[in-house]
Structures are given as structure tokens and as C-alpha cells.
């Protein structure tokens, strides 16, 4: 049986192991992220939320997903 290759990424400061060639759009759906209410950064570059399905994750990618919370 062929072994599925995995890569290590970092999301919001925590390491996560995902399948190689994972598309960011799929990952965010799995994590149930409400796309309309967040902004996403990949390796410190802000991503266009409409083009997430074209973003294939690589080993050591750093993803930041932010939203609005209460603040003064």
C-alpha cells in the first residue's frame, strides 16, 4: 500500500500535519472557518479569499486566520 505523504504546517501558532498537496480552501472548510468573517495570511502575505482553491500548501507554510473580537 502506498504511504500518504504528509507535510507539517503552522496555523495560528500551532503545528498541524496535513496531506501533501492539500488545497487551502479544503483545509479551511474542514476547520469550519466562516470565510466571510475572517482574513487569511499565508507566510505573511494576505490572500485573496476568492483564490484559496488555487493555493496548494507546502511544508512549513505558516497560516494566520484572524477575525474581529471585542476591543477598545
Amino acid at each position, binding site marked *: 500500500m502506498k504511504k500518504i505523504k504528509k507535510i507539517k504546517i503552522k496555523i495560528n501558532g500551532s503545528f498541524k500535519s496535513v496531506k501533501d498537496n492539500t488545497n487551502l480552501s479544503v483545509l479551511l472548510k474542514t476547520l469550519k472557518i466562516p470565510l466571510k468573517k475572517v482574513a487569511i495570511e499565508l507566510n505573511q502575505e*494576505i490572500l485573496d479569499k476568492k483564490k484559496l482553491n488555487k493555493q496548494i500548501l507546502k511544508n512549513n507554510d505558516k497560516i494566520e486566520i484572524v477575525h474581529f473580537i*471585542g476591543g*477598545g
Partner: protein
Amino acid sequence: MVSLKKDKFIIAGRNFKSRLIVGTGKYKSMSQCAKAVKLSGASIVTVAVRRVNIADKKKALLMDYIDPKKVTYLPNTAGCFNSKDALRTLRLAREIGGWKLVKLEVLGDKKNLFPEMIETLKSTEILSREGFNVMVYCSDDPLMAKRLENAGACAIMPLAAPIGSGLGIQNYTNIKIIRRQTKLPLIIDAGLGQASDATIAMELGCDGVLVNTAIAKAKKPFDMALAFKNAVIAGRQSYQSGRIKKNLMGSASSPLKGII
């Protein structure tokens, strides 16, 4: 009589109904925050940009409690101590839903939370060039306020006192000087402790006030939200009504003619 309806509060070309801006931090719960915001009558609320909690998918979101279509969200850069972080935060905020009206706040000291004005000025210039409408938290220095205006700020927001201190306005003279020199919206941001502080700010000629801790941490936040709402209206009306001159001696209110 000065009609409040005709008295426009315009920031970056948009007219806002209320001159009271409230922060959404430090509340016991989101529902408490939402109710206080409603009672305050605020048209603008400040919000912070932070990481989504990936582990807790059921955690409530601020947008579920305060509808950004009904109340204008003003993303801030609270917690940023340099221009780089502030710019990154506001660019992300814009990406969430197209927010261009933002509050820039670059802090310089973790204890007194005073603004780092060199970094603030630098950030104002860059953000304005990028098309942001930048409301700027700043020191109460009239010279620096002028430089921010020249750098493209859409509102000048000097502190009354350190953030969350509740000390009220410490430097009336500087606020009056800034009022006299700028036609931009002048909003007192930070340091107010009670409703009368907001009235004083408005009577000094400020266009609005921004309050968070004084409402969120009051014993009765809902009552305090209402008190601030009324205080801002009272202060504005008082300012526009033209106060009497101060006199050293007394002046009787009852006529002396016909005295028995």
C-alpha cells in the same frame, strides 16, 4: 435652537448619528457588550483583530452579536507597538470585509500605554497613501496633531488620560488648542471615567468621544452606557448654546425693583 438632526457628525465623508463611539472590549460576555452598545446609541464600535480559535469551532463571534451592517465596525491596532505590526493588522482588517475606516493606535509603553507618535505618524502616512481613512489615537500635543493632519489623518483622537485609567481630561488647554487649529473631527479617545468627563470633552468643542472601560467596567454597564449617551448629547448642546462669561463677582437672578 440648534437641531441635533442638522448637526452632522461627518468622518471621511460619512455622517454618523451618534457622537459617542464605544469600544467592545472588557465586557463579561458578548451579549452584555451588545446590549451596552445598543443602549449607548453608538453608530461606531471599535473592534480588535485577533487569531481565530481553531480548536473551539463553536465559539461565538462578535459579528453574531453586533451586526456590522447596523453598526459601523472600526478596526483598531490595539496591542501594536510598531508601524509594521499596525500596518499588517489594518491590512488584514480591510481584507475581512472591505473596511477602510480604521483606528490607528501604536503604543509606546506597556505600562502607561501612551502612543508612540513617531511610529504613529509614519503609519498614518502609509495607510493614507494606501486609501485607508485613518482615525488616529494620539498624544494631546497640538504640533503632533497638526503633523497627523498633514499626513492624511481623517480624525484626530487625542487621549484624555492613559487608556483605561478613568482619570478624565488632564490637559484642557491642549485640547482647546487642537480644537482651534483643526477642522478635522476631534475625538477624545481613552481615559474617561464617568459620564461628566464626556460632557466636558464635548463642551471643549470636541466632535465626539470614544469610551470603553468606563462603560464596560462600571458596576452597572447598561446604566453607564445610557449615561454616556446622554452626557455626549448634553455636552454638544451646551457647547453649541454658547456659555456665559465667567465673572468673579455675583449677579442676582431676581430683579431688585419692587423689593419689599
